[in-house]
């Protein structure tokens, strides 16, 4: 078991708490960088998809896992980013401008939604985002001159001046690079005043307020950040699948993003990445299950819905800290073997806690 001997406060603040952790992350970085040399295009494509989901996952995690606000409408922000990117690229904007603009467009939508709903108690936000996503979906279908309606839009390749992202490995590096930036930014916020304010709102809005946190302001901030990151992921997603239609951004996508953070592990950025890996691998597992039980592919939609639903129920019941929480437990078990006690992670029951506002 590693017991760090701390000699300065900075050791608690910096990104890698001790050398062993830094070493593991260095190894991971090396593996990620070396991947294109080892893996074929198909697996690289899957990994880029993981990175895209993880960027959106970081956004959803900040909102849901850290600030404790449920969103059922993140597909709308993903769509805003994807359509924003597709339209701006078609207008001839360079990628270096269109990507931030697509993210900003989604962020702006998030801000508008946040400003109009920030006085609401937590659960109302879920309903408001749901309503918002339905409206966005309808607008995408109806505003045919801009979005191509249900026929959809073609999305071209990414170009930086002379450089064209025309190979899987190039796209992979781009997506992973953006993911790393998103993770670093999120980590920095989380170890600062903003991050503490977010978790404070999640755990007790009333005492957060009595300590000077302006709940409405921070809720607006986190929804804006979350929408922006999801928008950036949407822009990459548009390039990844090259053809976007409104029916890719339905409530099912919103739920998928929610499953991502729940399964990955609420309240951890590791969880956002683990969840993204899970979401990309899941359809393949479902297909394997389907074949194993010889279920007709006509039931595919039902299986998807059922697996997502069951995952949400089972994880909330049995492992509310998700895959990351499970990993932490396993690690502790191995570290202190044979002294592990189940009670270490016993869930607290909080009776008499009421969030009721009316």
């Amino acid at each position, binding site marked *: 078991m590693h017991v760090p001997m701390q000699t300065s*406060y900075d050791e608690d603040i910096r990104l890698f708490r001790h050398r062993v952790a830094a070493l593991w992350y260095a190894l991971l970085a090396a593996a990620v960088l070396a991947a294109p040399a080892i893996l074929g295009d198909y697996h690289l494509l899957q990994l880029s998809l993981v990175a895209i989901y993880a960027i959106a996952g970081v956004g959803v995690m900040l909102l849901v896992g850290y600030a404790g606000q449920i969103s059922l409408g993140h597909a709308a922000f993903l769509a805003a980013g994807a359509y924003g990117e597709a339209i701006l690229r078609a207008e001839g904007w360079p990628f270096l401008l269109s990507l931030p603009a697509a993210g900003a467009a989604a962020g702006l939508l998030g801000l508008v939604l946040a400003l109009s709903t920030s006085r609401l108690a937590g659960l109302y936000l879920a309903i408001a985002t749901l309503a918002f996503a339905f409206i966005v979906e309808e607008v995408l279908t109806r505003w045919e001159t801009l979005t191509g309606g249900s026929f959809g839009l073609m999305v071209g390749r990414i170009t930086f001046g002379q450089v064209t992202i025309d190979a899987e490995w190039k796209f992979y590096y781009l997506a992973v690079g953006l993911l790393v930036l998103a993770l670093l930014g999120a980590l920095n916020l989380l*170890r600062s005043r903003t991050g503490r304010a977010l978790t404070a709102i999640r755990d*007790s809005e009333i*005492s957060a307020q009595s300590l*000077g946190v*302006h709940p409405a302001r921070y809720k607006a901030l986190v929804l804006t950040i979350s929408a922006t990151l999801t928008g950036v992921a949407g822009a990459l997603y548009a390039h990844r699948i090259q053809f976007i239609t409104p029916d890719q951004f339905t409530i099912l996508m919103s739920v998928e993003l929610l499953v991502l953070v729940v399964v990955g592990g609420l309240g951890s950025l590791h969880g956002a990445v683990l969840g993204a890996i899970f979401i990309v691998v899941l359809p393949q597992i479902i297909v394997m299950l389907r074949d194993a039980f010889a279920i007709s592919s006509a039931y595919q939609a039902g299986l998807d819905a059922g697996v997502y639903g069951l995952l949400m129920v089972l994880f909330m019941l049995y492992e509310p800290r998700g895959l990351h929480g499970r990993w932490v437990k396993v690690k502790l078990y191995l570290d202190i073997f044979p002294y592990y006690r189940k009670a270490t992670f016993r869930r*607290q029951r909080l009776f008499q806690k009421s969030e009721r506002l009316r």
Partner: protein
Amino acid sequence: MTLFEVRNLGRSFGGIQAVRDVSLSVAEGEIFSIIGPNGAGKTTLFNLVSRLYDADSGQIVFAGRDITRLAPHRVVELGIARTFQNIELFENSSVLHNLLVGRHCRASTGFLSELLFTQANRRVEIEHREKVEGIIELLDLQAHRNAPVGGLAYGIRKVVELGRALAAEPRLILLDEPSSGLNAEETEDLAFWIQDIRDDLGITVMMIEHDMGLVNMVSNRVLALDRGQVLAVGKPAEIMENPRVINAYLGG
């Protein structure tokens, strides 16, 4: 010198007058206790002061400034911090993290400097940490520094909440039943801490308390409240002997 003053404060909830025409003033450096039977309006009074509720009538003045209509999140930056009757901690965070949230109002790092974690931001973080370590030392919380508060014993959670309020460096601290749920030994510790808070940190203390032993031991003055109204104010011994106060407690 008067630090805090309430003038003719009133608040009703659906026809029930929870606080009725309450006036009081607290001098700087005083330990001022509020006693009264259940439902007397003590916590409502605190909630009015920390601006969780809006007053129907009257005025709240702190350090010469009228705060009757101040936004609730601005109260603490002026120097009023509080604790809650049924502990309101950030359950999923460590003790250290809880205390650091207490520092929220004492810094103004910009979003960009946080996003990039600049050197300036790092310095501010380390300053916060130094302040918080001082409080951890004062309240003997070293052993629990990195423990999630959700798993701590009730008595320790109460102390963490006190520490969190102190981290905000208030001039006035409102303690809502600080000794409820504590055993005799913990209550004794609490009495010393309350005096230390006043003597060493120079913080004025207002507390709602049922434990008369504690009230007697630390208070400079005591206010008795019943059915939203002030019954009496005075030295602890005077209040204990006041026939109206005794009557209110006996349910007369």
